[in-house]
């Protein structure tokens, strides 16, 4: 079943602007991950943040995690046309020792206007 919600469901911005996507989840987690999917193809891992971390950076990506609110955000700075894709958050449960699959959010479809 779906873990939670992502908002917005769709986001269209101008190239060069920043894009922020949010994700909420329901259960206790070991980590939260963000993935990108281009045109219904395979998923590409972007960044992983563990439950004891609050913020993480990778290049133009910034991820925050608030475990008290069970929410996360993904910020893409200085967006490019190539960033156009669907973005999904996914959680790994605290229990299970990593042997369980991921639970995905509903995703945000991001369109970068040139």
């Amino acid at each position, binding site marked *: 079943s779906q873990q939670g919600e992502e908002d917005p469901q769709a986001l269209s911005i101008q190239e060069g602007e920043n894009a922020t996507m949010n994700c909420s989840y329901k259960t206790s987690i070991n980590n939260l991950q963000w993935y990108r999917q281009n045109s219904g193809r*395979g998923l590409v891992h972007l960044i992983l943040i563990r439950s004891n971390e609050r913020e993480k950076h990778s290049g133009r990506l910034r991820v925050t995690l608030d475990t008290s609110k069970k929410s996360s955000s993904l910020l893409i700075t200085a967006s490019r046309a190539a960033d156009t894709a669907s973005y999904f958050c*996914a959680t790994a449960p605290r229990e299970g*020792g990593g042997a369980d699959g*991921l639970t*995905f959010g509903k995703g945000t479809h991001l369109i970068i206007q040139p």
Partner: protein
Amino acid sequence: SAVISQKPSRDICQRGTSLTIQCQVDSQVTMMFWYRQQPGQSLTLIATANQGSEATYESGFVIDKFPISRPNLTFSTLTVSNMSPEDSSIYLCSVTGQLNTEAFFGQGTRLTVV
């Protein structure tokens, strides 16, 4: 990291028939996961496949409909049986290199049932 080859990449099938999807990984992994992505939706975990044991199915998925094989540590198959148009989806296999780390995905199999 892990490189996953998934075949076929797409297929159009008649209702009532079955399709077997293959997933080959370039390294030995303990857990392999199968996901379904219905049109315009997020990913939902179908089952977890361990080598040498029966696959573990998520709620709403049953072995008779989605039989899985895991003959060794680098290969798995998912069969979609007695297909109906509602089975039209993208099916993706996934592995994790180590527990509670990023997941790697195949490019997916886009299935259309007519």
